[in-house]
C-alpha cells in the first residue's frame, strides 16, 4: 500500500461504526523499516496519534480501530514522512550520488513493514537498502539504475 495518499484515509471505529477522524501523516522507523503509526487530522479525545499496534486493519479505503481506546499520544522521535519533508525530498546513495526524489513509500498493509521506496522517476528501492531518513536526505545503500 502506497503512503503518499494516506491522508485521504478515514479512520472508522468498529465499535460504533462511525468515522471518527482521518489519517494525516505516517511515521516510519528507518532502522526497523516499519510503520510506527499515524498522526490524525483531528484529535480524538485529545489524542492525535494512532500507533500501528492499535490499528485493527489498514484497508484500501479506510483504517479501522476496535474502539476509541486506540488513540494515544505520539511518541518522541517518530519521523513523519510528510512532516519531516522526507516525501518529495532528495535521495542519496551511500556513494554520495543524488538518485532522485522520494515520491512514495510502499508498505505491507498486514504488517506495516516497508517494502519499497518509490523515486520520482518510478524507480523502486527495496527496503533493505534503506539506510536512513534524515534532515537533509534519505540515504540508500546502492546506486539505483533508472528504468530503461
Amino acid at each position, binding site marked *: 500500500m502506497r503512503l503518499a495518499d494516506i491522508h485521504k484515509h478515514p479512520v472508522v471505529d468498529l465499535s460504533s461504526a462511525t468515522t471518527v477522524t482521518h489519517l494525516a501523516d505516517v511515521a516510519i522507523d528507518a532502522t526497523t523499516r516499519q510503520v510506527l503509526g499515524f498522526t490524525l487530522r483531528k484529535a480524538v479525545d485529545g489524542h492525535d496519534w494512532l500507533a500501528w499496534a492499535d490499528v485493527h486493519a489498514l484497508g484500501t479505503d479506510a483504517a479501522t480501530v476496535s474502539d476509541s481506546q486506540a488513540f494515544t499520544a505520539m511518541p518522541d522521535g517518530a519521523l513523519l514522512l510528510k512532516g519531516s519533508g522526507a516525501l518529495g525530498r532528495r535521495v542519496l546513495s*551511500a556513494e554520495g550520488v*543524488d538518485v532522485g526524489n522520494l515520491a512514495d513509500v510502499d508498505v505491507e498493509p498486514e504488517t506495516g513493514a516497508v517494502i519499497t521506496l518509490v523515486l520520482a522517476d518510478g524507480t523502486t528501492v527495496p527496503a533493505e537498502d534503506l539506510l*536512513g531518513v*534524515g534532515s*537533509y536526505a534519505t*540515504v540508500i545503500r546502492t546506486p539505483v539504475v533508472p528504468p530503461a
Partner: protein
Amino acid sequence: MSVLVRGSELVGLPVVDLAGDDLAEVRDVLFDPGAGLVLGFTLNKRGFLSGRLKQVLAREAVLAVGPAAIMVADPAALDHELAPSGSGGDVLGDRVLTDAGVDIGTVTDVVVDTADGRVVGYEIAPVGESTGRKGRRSYIPLPDAGTASGETLIVPAAAVDYISADLAGFGEAVDRFRDLLRGDGT
C-alpha cells in the same frame, strides 16, 4: 566507483551521514602533494554565510565522495584526527617542471580520484597561455607514487606525452601513463 573530479568542485559539497543528516560542508581540500593524497577537508557549518567549523574531516573517515555529497558513517566521523603531513597543502599557482627541465605551466587545480582520494593529476595553465579564468586548461597525469614538491612540482618527462585537453579522457591517460612507468620498472 571511480570518478575524476577537480578539487575545487568538492568545495561546497554537503557532508552527509548515513542517517541522512547534513553535518557540514566542504570549505577546502587538504592535499599532500608529496604523497599524492587528499588528506581531508576543512569544513564550514551548513547554511548561507555560516562560519568555519573547528573540526576537520579526515580522508579515512570518508565513506564516499560523490557528485552530490561527501558521505560519512555518523557525526563521530568529524572527530577523527588529521594524519600529520610533512608537506603543506597548497599547490595552486605552483610551477610544474619535468625532470628533464621543461617548464610545463602552473597548477590551477588538482584532479582527484573519488574512489580512493588519490590525486591523479594536475590541471595546469600551460606556459605562454593566459593565466586568466578563460585561459585554456590542460591535465597532466602524476605517477601513483606522488611527486617531489618544493619550490616547483617535478613530474617525469614522459608525462608530457599524456597531457589531456579535457577531463573526460583524462582517466584513461592516467592509466596509460602509470602503465608506462611500471613497464619501465620505475
